[in-house]
């Protein structure tokens, strides 16, 4: 064993050129007008520039040769939270990471969800803060108390969670028991936050009454129109059947027709 260890260690020490040491801002969790900095010492080669990168997007870059690079942050919140990588453009490049962490800011997909009786209702909560949520819990508000819902409760409630989203699926919605307010809670290493979603269950037959009402209205109107026509028909039957002489009868008072009519009947 004693022989092995040095052998493992030695190649490591021999290949390694001394790594530059990068000192960064301590982890930031709150505040406004915060400055993130990275200081490099013992750089392998000359510094030709700096870059600040977050999620593969370059936020800031310059080509000074300073040993310190600074990034200004207006405010620490959900949108600005994340991993900020400061990159020194040496050969090879050296990077440091600043962690801007916040407690979760939970948002609901839809404040008020609807579902039909017997269908599956889905309630969704999202959180895009960094670090991502490690634990999601769901509660149902029942008589001023919050009852915890666990995956598989009643064999109808199923929870699917990930770092930035959680879904509560309620199978076979019951119009008596299920409507109400549901609370989702997300926790990460910094803190926790939650939001409320309300669920409404529509009766299967809810749409049926307006439907029948409108169909009845259509039938009534059509009947009225046809009856009205039948009662007027005796007056117009002659006009319609006899195309030749009708114009004479019904348009006799029309001057303009007279010219042509007279010609035709002559």
């Amino acid at each position, binding site marked *: 064993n004693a022989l092995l260890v040095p052998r493992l260690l030695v190649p490591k020490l021999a290949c390694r050129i001394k790594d530059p040491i990068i000192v960064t801002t301590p982890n930031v969790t709150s505040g406004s007008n915060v400055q993130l900095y990275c200081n490099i010492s013992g750089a392998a080669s000359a510094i030709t520039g700096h870059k600040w990168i977050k999620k593969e997007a370059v936020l800031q870059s310059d080509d000074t040769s300073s040993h310190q690079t600074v990034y200004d942050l207006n405010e620490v919140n959900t949108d600005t939270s994340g991993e900020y990588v400061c990159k020194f453009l040496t050969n090879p490049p050296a990077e440091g990471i600043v962690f801007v962490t916040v407690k979760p800011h939970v948002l609901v997909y839809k404040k008020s969800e609807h579902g039909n009786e017997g269908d599956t209702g889905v309630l969704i909560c999202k959180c895009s803060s960094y670090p991502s949520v490690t634990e999601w819990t769901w509660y149902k508000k029942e008589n001023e108390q919050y009852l915890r819902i666990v995956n598989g409760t009643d064999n109808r409630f199923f929870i699917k969670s990930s770092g930035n989203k959680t879904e509560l699926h309620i199978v076979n919605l019951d119009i008596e028991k299920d409507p109400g307010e549901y609370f989702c809670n997300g926790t990460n290493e910094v803190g926790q936050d939650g939001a409320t979603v309300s669920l409404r269950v529509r009766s299967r037959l809810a*749409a049926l009454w307006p439907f029948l009402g409108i169909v009845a209205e259509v039938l009534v109107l059509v009947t009225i129109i046809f009856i009205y026509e039948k009662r007027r028909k005796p007056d117009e039957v002659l006009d319609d059947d006899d195309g030749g002489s009708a114009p004479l009868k019904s348009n006799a008072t029309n001057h303009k027709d007279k010219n042509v009519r007279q010609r035709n009947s002559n």
Partner: protein
Amino acid sequence: MSSPASTGLASTPPDGGWGWAVLFGAFISIGFSYAFPKALAIFFKEIQDFFGTSYSEVAWVSSIMLAATYGGGPISSILVNRFGSRPVVIFGGLLCGIGMVSASFCTSIMQLYICVGLMSGFGLALNLQPSVIIIGKYFLKRRPIANGLAMAGSPVMLCTLAPLNQFLFDNFGWRGSFLILGAILLNCCVAGALFRPIGHATGPIQKEANKEVKETAKAVGFLAATEEEEDKQCCAKFNQYLDCSLFKHRGFLIYLVGNVLMFLGFFAPIVFLAPYAKHMGIDEYSAAFLLSILAIVDMIARPTTGLIANSKWVRPKIQYFFSFSIAFNGACHLLCPLASDYAGLVIYSVFFGLAFGMVCAMLFETLMDLVGAVRFTSAVGLVTIAECCTILLGPPVGGALIDTFGDYKYMFIKCGAVMVLAGTFLFIMNYYNYRMLAKEEKAVGTKDPEHGKPMNEGSNNWDSEKMQDGQELEPLTDEQGLKKEVNGLTEV
């Protein structure tokens, strides 16, 4: 008033009376046909989530519906020629209703394509054509006003259906909404019930006319008539139901080419107006408000255009007015890229709404003016199926232009250019057509002094009506001209 024989109708259009009830029915029918596919877009997000499909797959529902509405045109025309407007519209209304009700029980997107797209779409086709046709039968003197008022149904229905759909969706979900919308579409049957038949069906008239013409042709010995006679025997049966001789009609061909070209750039700007506004940095609600402005201006523009088109200065040269409004529409699109902020876009929307309303109000009126009320039945069917292709092509081509160049202005330029071209084409060709018609009218007048007399007398009194007759008389083929003579002789 023109003689019924000359317009080919069995009785004189009343231009009032029950015509207003018919107009109201047509208003409802046309409104549903144009506005319903657009208003359905409100449900798409929910349906997309429910079936787990992409947005374009759901948007196909609207496209299939539009295609069915326009593609069903010829079938609609044939049915109207055979049965008259009323039964067709009532059947169409039932079909729409059943389509939407069955759509509310659908379990896959394919079934939605069939129920909503094909069934309801075809039902709307059976609503649209007969409504437009029956206006021509009930109105002559006031026909442009009637057309303008009836076409105003489209923006009014859109403004009503959009919030209604949102309300239904919030309260009943998409399935419940489709059920209720099916019932609402049944109101088209009520509109159909109002379409009281007037005069004889056109089929038997043409049959009799053809028989008489054949005999007179043999008697008088016109060569042209005998050649046509042989042609007739070949497709006489089919021609009864769908008048294919329209393809030899000069005015019809001009209209067809001009309109098919125009529709390439007609709808794309509406589809992309809101996305363009959002692209410029305007928020969603203001962008949606642009479309509302468009709809409101459209609503006012249509009946107003009808009134203007009915005036004695415009009606004789209504084709020029139509070409002008198309070119005006194109000019609006060409100027749109100059709008750099929200105020500019609002001005654009106002002018666009105005131009859009003008074109739509006269869309069918000009066709009626060119081919006459009798042949309009077949003409409208043939025109809509030709327009079907370019209507469906327009927005995707515009979308492709936007994607390729990453800039909306090329789409506006393309639409503007196409429409200005169409407008210019129609203007020039109609100028030519008016001249040819004037020549033919003179020729008929000198050929047949007996027939010529009342026309000359009439022209002193009738003004716009006479010009109207001129349009409708001349396009009839020689044999139909003989038919007039024949009618005159028989009534002696």
